[in-house]
C-alpha cells in the first residue's frame, strides 16, 4: 500500500533538491549588488506599500469586467465544444444566442468608447 506512494516521495525529494540546489548554486556564482528597488516586494506597476486611500482609475474596473465577461464566455465554450457532436443543432443555436447576447455587451463598450484607454470626456447636452 505505502509502496505505491514511494514514487511521490521520491518526486518530492527530487523537487526539493532541485530547487535548493539551484538556489545554492545561484548564491555561489551570482554577483551581489542589492539596491532598494530590487529588494521591494513585487507588485505589477504599483508601489507595494502606501496609504489605503489612494484613488486609482475607475477604468481599471471596466477593463477587468470586460475581461471577465469574455473569460467566462470561453469557460462556457469549452464544455460546449467537447459535447457538441452529441447535442447537435439545438446546442449550436443555443450557444449562438448566448454569444449574441455577449456581443451586444462588446458592441456597447466599443461604441461607448471604453476600449480606448484615453476616454473622451462626456458632457451632458444642454
Amino acid at each position, binding site marked *: 500500500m505505502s509502496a505505491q506512494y514511494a514514487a511521490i516521495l521520491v518526486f518530492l525529494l527530487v523537487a526539493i533538491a532541485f530547487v535548493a540546489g539551484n538556489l545554492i548554486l545561484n548564491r555561489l556564482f551570482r554577483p551581489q549588488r542589492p539596491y532598494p528597488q530590487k529588494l521591494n516586494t513585487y507588485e505589477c506597476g504599483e508601489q507595494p506599500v502606501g496609504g489605503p486611500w489612494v484613488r486609482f482609475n475607475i477604468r481599471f474596473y471596466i477593463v477587468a469586467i470586460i475581461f471577465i465577461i469574455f473569460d467566462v464566455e470561453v469557460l462556457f465554450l469549452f464544455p460546449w465544444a467537447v459535447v457538441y457532436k452529441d447535442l447537435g443543432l*439545438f446546442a449550436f443555436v443555443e450557444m449562438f444566442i448566448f454569444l449574441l*447576447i455577449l456581443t*451586444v455587451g462588446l*458592441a*456597447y463598450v466599443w*461604441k*461607448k468608447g471604453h476600449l480606448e484607454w484615453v476616454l473622451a470626456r462626456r458632457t*451632458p*447636452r444642454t
Partner: protein
Amino acid sequence: MDNLSSLSYFIPELTLTVTLLLVLCSDLLHREQEGLDFPAWLALVGMFVAFVAHFGLYGKPAVSLFEGMIAHDPFAVFFKGFFIFCTFIIVLLSIYSSEVFYYRKSEYLAILSAICLGMCLTASSTNLIMLYLSIELMSIGSYLLAGFARSGGKTDEAAIKYVLFGAMSTGVMLFGMSILYGLTGTMDIAGIRQVLFANVSSDPVVLLSFLFVLVGAGYKIAAVPFHFWCPDVYEGAPTPVTAFLSVASKGTGFALLIRFFYRAMLQPAGEGTWSSLPAIDWMLLFAILSAVTMTAGNLGAMPQRNIKRLLAYSAIAHAGYLLMGIAALTSEGIASILFYLVMYLFTNLTAFLVVMILVNRTGEDEIPSYRGLWQRAPLPAVVMAIALISLTGLPPTAGFVGKLYLFIAAWHSGLYWLVVVAVLNSVVSLYYYFRIVRAMFLETGPDTAISHQPVYETVLVLLAAPILLLMIFFGPVLRLAQYCAQMLP
C-alpha cells in the same frame, strides 16, 4: 421538465430579456432626448407585453422547470405580475423625473429591466444556487440605481451604504445556504426539507443556517435589525428608485422568505396549515421579529422631518405588519401577505409619485414644504391624503382591508398579543401620517401653484383609484391572493 419545453412557461422573462437587450442597443443607435423617447417607448412596450404574457401562465398546471431550477406555480406567477407591473409604473415615473440623468436614460432603463428579471427569477427559484444568482442580479442593479441621482453627496452615500449592507447580508445568507448544503447534501429547496424532516433534525445548526438566510431576506424587506440602510438609502436615491425599492424590493424579500421558509423549513400539514421541526418555534421567532420591526418603524418615523425618511420608517413598519402573515404559518397568512402587497403597491407608489412631483418642481422633500399643498396642487394633495389614510389602515381604503386580513390570519393562529401590538402600532402611525395631511390641508404655505406633467395626473388617478376600489371590490383580488398562495409542494 427539460430546458426546451420549459421555454413556453418562461415567456414573461424572455420578453424582459429581449427588452433589456433592445434598450441597450437603442442607446447605441439613438441620441437620447428628454421625455418619452425611443428607448423609453421600448421599455414601456416590453414591460406591457411581459405583463400581458404573464396572464397566460395562470392557466397552466404547476410544474418544475429547467431541470428543477425554477418552479412554475400560482405563487410565482403572482409575483411575476407584481414585479412587472411595478417596473412598468416606475419606468413611467422615471421618464419625466428631473432626478434621473436623461442622457443616461437607456442605461437606467436597461438596469431596471435587468432588476425586474432578477426579481421574477427570485420569486420562482427552487434551487439555492439559482436563488442566490437571481438575488444578486436584482441587488447589483439596485445598488447602481440608488446612486443614479443628478446631485452628488447624499446619493453617493445612499449607494455606498446600500452596497456595503447588501454585500454583507447576502454574504451571510450565502454562508447560511452553504451550511444547509453541508447538512443536507442537496441544493434543491424541497430536497432540503425532505432530509431535515426525515432525520427529524433538531440540530441547532439548522436554526443558525436559517437565521443566516433570514439576514439576506430581512435586509431586502428592511426588517429590524437589518433596517439601518433604509432611511439613508430612501432619502439619497432618486425618488422613482426609492419607490421601486420600497415596493418591488420588499416584494422580492417576501417572495424569497415565503418560498424558502415554507418549502425548506415547514411541512404542509393539511387544510392550509404547516408544521415545523419539533425543536424550533418558528411562530414565536417571526412574531417577535414582526412586533419589534413594526414598533421600531413607527417610533422611528415620529421625529422625521424629511418625507422620504418618514416613508422609509413607514416601510419598515409595514414590513413588520407583513411579517405577521409569515408568523401565522398558514396558507391564509400567505394569502393575506399577497393581498397586502397589492394594496401596498398602489398606496406606496401613489405616495412616492406625489413626493416626486414636489421634488421635481420645488426641489424640496421636507414636510414643511407640504404646507398648503391643497391650494397649490389640489389633485396631488387629495391623492396623497388617500394614500396616507391607506397606509394608516383606515377605511375607506384598501389599507384597511389588507390589515384586517393580516390581523385575522394572525388571530386564527393564536397570536392574540401580536394583533394587539399591531393595532396599537397602527394608532401610533396615525400621528405621523396625519402630520402630513394636516400640513397639506390645514396649514397655509406660499401661494405659488405647483404645475406638473399632465401625464402624472392620469397616473395619479389610475394609481389612487384602486386604493378606494379595493375597499369595496376586494373579493376578486382576495380570491386571486388565496389561489396564488399555492406553491409547488
